[in-house]
């Protein structure tokens, strides 16, 4: 087990649905203990790319490699819990493979879902469901945690505490983390790399740790305690943005600042 070998890597991955090119030329890798944040506007293919990473979707072209025996802890955006399927949180957690009772108890306590064990999964709030999903992912003792917009339903303090938990897990367990952020500018400050995706990799870099200056408090709210950071995009190209109607209207996607629009 070489430390230098990435856990997951892709070369020139592309995905087409007929004539529709969703992803192209994606070269990506994640190594042990790395935290990588993926962000991009709606419809950019980030969730699709995540599905390729976890092996749920086969790319149309290119290669994807998993290290031998790789264990992935996947935290999906939602669970298609049919109202017809009864499922307690406890039973759901037991569905994962080979987790010993002590492992389960440890994570239940650390993530804080102990009081939810006998609740029905379909009755959980957004934040509660995310924590349950995280618990099941951690119970698999993963090499890499992959989270799909895990903080979408949470308010800023909730998001910050979730990120702090992830960072703690990375520090204690040594696993890598790939997370898709639902926000275009605000990311987990502990990210080692941020990748902006919109069909392909638009830019890549490190987040800017925001100072404790009061001007930024308004932006980040109280109680975030440095868990959030800004990411400055650095695009040398543009995309065809249709600004008609509600279709591409993403409130977070601002066209000022560093984006020069030429193509």
């Amino acid at each position, binding site marked *: 087990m070489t430390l230098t070998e990435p856990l997951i890597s892709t070369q020139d991955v592309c995905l087409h649905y007929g004539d529709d090119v969703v992803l192209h030329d994606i070269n990506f890798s994640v190594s042990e203990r790395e935290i990588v944040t993926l962000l991009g506007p709606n419809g950019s293919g980030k969730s699709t790319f995540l*599905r390729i990473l*976890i*092996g*749920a979707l086969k790319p149309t072209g290119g290669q994807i490699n998993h290290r031998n025996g790789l264990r*992935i*802890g*996947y935290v*999906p955006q939602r*669970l*298609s*819990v*049919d109202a*017809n*399927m*009864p*499922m*307690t949180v406890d*039973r*759901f957690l037991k*569905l*994962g*493979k080979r987790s010993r009772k002590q492992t389960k108890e440890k994570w239940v306590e650390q993530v804080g879902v102990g009081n939810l064990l006998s609740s*029905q999964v379909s009755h959980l709030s957004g934040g509660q469901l995310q924590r349950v999903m995280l618990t099941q992912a951690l119970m*698999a003792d993963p090499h890499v945690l*992959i989270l799909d917009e895990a903080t979408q339903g949470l308010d800023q303090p909730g998001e910050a505490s979730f990120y702090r938990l992830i960072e703690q897990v990375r520090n204690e367990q040594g696993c890598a983390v790939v997370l898709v952020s639902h926000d275009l500018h605000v990311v987990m400050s502990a990210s080692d790399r941020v990748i902006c995706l919109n069909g392909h990799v638009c830019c890549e870099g490190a987040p800017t740790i925001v100072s404790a200056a009061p001007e930024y408090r308004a932006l980040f709210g109280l109680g975030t305690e440095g868990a959030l950071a800004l990411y400055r995009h650095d695009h040398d190209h543009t995309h065809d943005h249709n600004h008609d109607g509600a279709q591409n209207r993403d409130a977070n996607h601002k066209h000022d600042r560093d984006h020069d629009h030429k193509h």
Partner: protein
Amino acid sequence: MRLRPFSPTLLLIMLDDFMFRAFLAGCGLALAAGPLGCFVVWRRMAYFGDAISHAALLGVALSLGFSLSPFIGVLVVAVIVAYGIARLSGRLFAVDTLLGVAAHVSLALGLVAVSKLSGVRLDLSSYLFGDILAVTRGDIVIVWAGSLLTVALLIWRWVPLLTSTLNPDLAAASGHKVEREQMVLMMSLAVLVAVAIKLVGALLITAILIIPAAAARVFSKTPEQMAVIAIVIGVASVGSGLLLSLYADTPSGPSIVVAAGIYFILANAVMASRRQTV
């Protein structure tokens, strides 16, 4: 057959040769229909069930044409249709419509083919609505063998099936092959259709799958509970339906489904009254 109501002969009735055989066969069916029905409900596969069971009529026609036992003909067609649907369902859009077309066209084709092949006018109602009272000892063996096979298959793949039902991506990340689990379900459905066609008939197979499961939902907190309770309600429906057909002189297959329907209504009444008291 006249009976004195509320008499100790109730027990004797069930031990009566043909009634007991019918009940035994029905229990075998309920054993498999319970858990499989739960998956049909959870995964919204009722249309798939219809497509396979209606196409089974073509299997009947085949078996008449080739002088095979109807069970073999139905099993072959059911497996082929199940396989075809499993392979295509990921790739096609508007699957519901296609399945509806396939189901009803194959049913009609089967009816036409049977009328042409049988020479004498064949009473098709036994294939459409079942003829559970005519089960032989051999039939019981087939029903139980098919059911036990189905149940064994479901138990073997239980966790992967549940996980891929909850979230196919989660299942893939855990290393399960989602398409393979879907194929397992479709094959189980094919076996159940072949087994059930003589008991409840092609038109009522989906009912016997989904109604006990839907009724069981009310009382369940986990998927396993729902599967077991669905079996219990299935057995109760078979028993009540057979008694109903005996007392009221109604056709037995539909009576079983009526009984299941009544249990479904009762279960929901219980749920509604629970909500009021809470």
